[in-house]
């Protein structure tokens, strides 16, 4: 029962048109650039997978990663909290032209909805967004005199995750603040696909230090020298 894929192309081969794809990362930290670009390459070569819904805190920056997916025309909808960046042109142009849909979710609610999806909690109440436009149409309830908004779980067909170390059973660690949404997304997707900087044998990660237990991981591919999105963007604009 090996979870190891021989290549990024193989790792993302099951992703199909119309799927909901959670992509780890906050800005460039944790963005799984090699998995994303394997998907873009396939789309450019075959026209599939298109019409994707992408879940990420942001909506791309410059022309790499999620921005490159948007430029390629693969993304029908973004679910995010902050579709702005130092260079948000890819999303902004399509959004203002009505060519891409946006579901705007407050950042903490986005995190909690994804966690809920992974934890089998179909709905929860949060004070966040009560009385604002973002809460329009959502049920509200009062608990101990304070008002709360009911939010629903968020699940995905696939999660694309960048890890630091993976063992062959799927246990993961992350690198600094590249952790962000990734441990949550790994729990909320039917299939979780991981690119790891280093692949080790079981036992190579101290059981005390595992951040994502292997039960949440389906496929692993080693990308030993991964690109860092922010570094790429700074190269681009030099």
């Amino acid at each position, binding site marked *: *029962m090996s979870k190891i894929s021989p290549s990024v192309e193989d790792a993302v081969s099951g992703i199909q048109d119309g799927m909901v794809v959670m992509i780890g990362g906050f800005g460039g930290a944790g963005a799984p650039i090699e998995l994303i670009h394997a998907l873009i390459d396939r789309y450019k070569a075959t026209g599939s997978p298109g019409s994707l819904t992408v879940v990420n805190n942001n909506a791309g920056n410059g022309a790499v990663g999620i921005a490159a997916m948007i430029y390629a025309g693969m993304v029908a909808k973004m679910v995010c909290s902050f579709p702005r960046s130092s260079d948000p042109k890819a999303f902004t142009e399509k959004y203002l032209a009505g060519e891409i849909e946006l579901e705007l979710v407050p950042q903490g609610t986005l995190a909690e909805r994804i*966690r809920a*999806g*992974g*934890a*089998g*909690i179909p709905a929860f109440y949060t004070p966040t967004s009560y009385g604002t436009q973002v809460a329009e149409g959502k049920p509200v309830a009062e608990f101990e005199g304070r008002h709360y908004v009911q939010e629903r779980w968020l699940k995905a067909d696939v999660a694309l995750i960048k890890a630091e170390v993976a*063992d*062959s*059973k799927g*246990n993961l660690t992350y690198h600094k603040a590249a952790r962000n949404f990734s441990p949550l997304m790994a*729990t909320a997707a039917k299939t979780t696909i991981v690119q790891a900087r280093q692949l080790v*044998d*079981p*036992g190579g*990660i101290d*059981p*005390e230090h*595992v951040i994502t*237990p*292997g*039960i*949440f991981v389906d496929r692993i591919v080693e990308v030993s020298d991964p690109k860092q999105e922010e570094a790429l963007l700074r190269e681009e604009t030099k």
Partner: protein
Amino acid sequence: MTAKLTNAQIAWRAAQDIPDGAYVNLGIGFPEMVAKFKPDGREVIYHTENGILDFGEAPPAGEEDWDLINAGKKAVTLNPGAAFFHHADSFAMVRGGHLDVAILGAYEVAETGDLANWSTGPGSVPAVGGAMDLVHGAKRVAVITDHVTKKGEPKLVKSCSLPLTGVGCVTTVYTSLAVIDIVDRRFLLREKLPSMSVEELQAVTGAELVVGDTVADLIVPEV
């Protein structure tokens, strides 16, 4: 009544249906025995509610670390690739549908899939533990049990008389006499002891056994 399977044999039979690579939670007590009968060559990763994935056998007496225990508070060991996590993450695995199989004991199982396994009714101290979570979390919820109570009464019934653990949750029952799937709120007989007729089995079962095209022989080695 004719011969019946021992508890070890019931556990053996349940173990044969656990697929390679499965994530499995075994209930406290009798279900723990299933781990002994994992077929060679299959990898099974065991989850315990108190925050370990991929634990192994009990350590030798005297070598216990009492901070390394399973949900039954028995000392365990770790396999390479084990992980620790807190209780909310542990039950996210359960409730979130990440376990492939949970195997539990039962007082009663109804043909609707309802399970009663936590309370024998008023008068005792109630204790539920993780059972109510497990029955709604795993992709397959299997029960292992004697086919009848010590008094000879059916444990497989039309509807449970004892307090429920969960509604419509059981998918398969491995008993001392048969293997029964629950399909469309009916008991579908999959295997029975070759020494028993369907009629004999029906006589000790509290709801109708649906018999499909084939009923395989339930054949279990001495274990």
